[in-house]
């Protein structure tokens, strides 16, 4: 397991390209959902039923590029957690399943809607993701995406929903 990358600062990684309608069952199989929850347990199973060698090949800061409706299906949060702790910094897609989208941002995994980047980003090549600049760069080309709201950025900077809630509850 690589562990998570700090996505609040610009990071670089290789591009892994996948198709449309990649569901949470192939990202994290249901046969593990009630026995594996911790980041250490779930990360080795990332994308197991879509690309069985992914978890061995992925390195910190790598970027998944996909088509429509990435993360559709089950609400299982391990689908976001396993990618994050396997080292994935961002998933760039044409659209996302809505529960995955929430789970990803809540766990500090960037879920970026950017069709232009999906069209252009090359498999295996390095890309840079800059959250503050709302831009993805590869080979001298910039792909802008809609900025995340200040609320979402402060949640990501805090380390995710749980860390943010801890601070909020501690502050009363």
């Amino acid at each position, binding site marked *: 397991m690589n562990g998570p990358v700090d996505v609040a600062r610009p990071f670089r990684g290789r591009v892994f390209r996948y198709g449309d309608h990649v569901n949470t*069952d192939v990202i994290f199989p249901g046969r593990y959902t009630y026995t594996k929850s911790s980041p250490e347990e779930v990360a080795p199973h990332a994308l197991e039923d879509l690309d069985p060698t992914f978890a061995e090949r992925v390195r910190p800061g790598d970027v998944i590029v996909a088509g429509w409706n990435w993360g559709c299906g*089950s609400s299982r949060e391990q689908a*976001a957690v396993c990618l994050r702790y396997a080292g994935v910094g961002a998933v760039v897609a044409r659209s996302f399943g*809505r529960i995955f989208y929430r789970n990803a941002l809540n766990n500090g995994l960037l879920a970026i809607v950017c069709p232009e980047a999906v069209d252009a980003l090359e498999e295996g090549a390095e890309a840079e993701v800059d959250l503050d600049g709302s831009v993805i760069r590869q080979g001298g080309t910039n792909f802008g995406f809609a900025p995340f709201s200040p609320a979402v950025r402060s949640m990501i900077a805090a380390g995710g929903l749980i860390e943010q809630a801890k601070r909020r*509850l501690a502050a009363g």
Partner: protein
Amino acid sequence: MTEVGRPADMARTFAQKALAQASGHESVAVGEIVDARPDIALSHDNTAPIAEIWRQFGQDRVVIPERMAVTLDHAVPAPTVRHAQNHTEVRAFVAEQGIGHFFEVGRGICHQVLSEEAVVLPGDLILGSDSHTPHFGWLGAFGAGVGRSEMAVLWATGELWLRVPESIRIRLEGALGEWVTTKDVALTLIGDLGADGALYRSVEFEGPAIAGLSLDSRAALVNMMAEMGAKNAYMAPDEDVFRYLAGRLLTRPGRRKGRGAEPGETSGEVAGRLRERALYPDAGAEYAAEHILDLSSVQPQVARPHQVDDTAGVSELESVRVDQAFIGTCTNGRLEDLGAVHRVMAGRRLARGTRMVIVPASSEVWNEALSRGWVADLAASGAVFGTPGCGPCMGNHLGVLAPGEVCISSANRNFQGRMGDRGAEIYLASPAVVAASAIAGRIVHPREVVE
């Protein structure tokens, strides 16, 4: 009182009304983000890992114990020691926190059980750490799925942010033909609009055909909208729904104020209060899309592996051999579904080389099927039965698939690897088509078996 900047005279969708009510606003705009306070917070076997997250907050007590509903359903009875430990942790948490609604192993699937128990009422907001929480739209409630971390925050604070979704209106006209069910309606809609055809949106059904649909049929259609990407789905509730819930509330005293039958109340009085709770979209509300579907135009459908929107008429399929037939789940494991299976299978035997697993959606469904003699007849046909719950739907137990095997299923998802090995194939269809295919040993239209 009209709030500043919130026009109160605009026509509103169901989603706008439900989320305005749950967030304490007079009205809310589409796209607005609101802090919503759900009436019910649903979790299931995942309650223990959520509790582990919640404990990080350092609270002694959850703030909404009376609103929480926990059902053990996803892997029941426990197939492994690890699952059994998980159940033990859930029970300990429920006892420690005085959780308002708890349903043990064997009672059934959370969505079916909370409907039968009248825990969810018309006009409610229910958030669940389960992707089929839109199910409760069949009762006129707003149900949406959330993640485990969000559920933990909800237990700790009583609220969660939600974006008010755009709505899609689907008007249902006409009546279903012979051997056609609302599962076929759902697959037709998903096939036409795509697995993301309602992404982030509220799917709101209305129209004259609803009155002619049984309650079980309504639940199946609304439930399946999760597979179209919907945030929630909704069907305008009518007197049938109010009577169903009222009858159940009368035999379940002790509900918190305003959510049950008061002592001495008649069924009609309880139904009347439920009617007052119900929310309906205004005429002239704005929709992102509007569709009209004539139910008489729908034919039995099958979704092919591995995408739910890869649909075809059952008669269009080339001969597809079947190793396993599965009946069950929150989509199609209800009494009407077992009745359709019985109609097709009674007095016939499973095809050689084909096996069949039936998992009723609840103990109530199981008991009724038993008393009607259906279980004995289906067992004589060669079917085996599992404990009420989710069964093999997500590949935990009770009928997982080997590489190369083909399953025809009344469930809701045919994703690769969903029911076991990634080399297995899952076809989705109505219970009648599943039953007919189990008898024929290949996927067929029910009339090929029955007529």
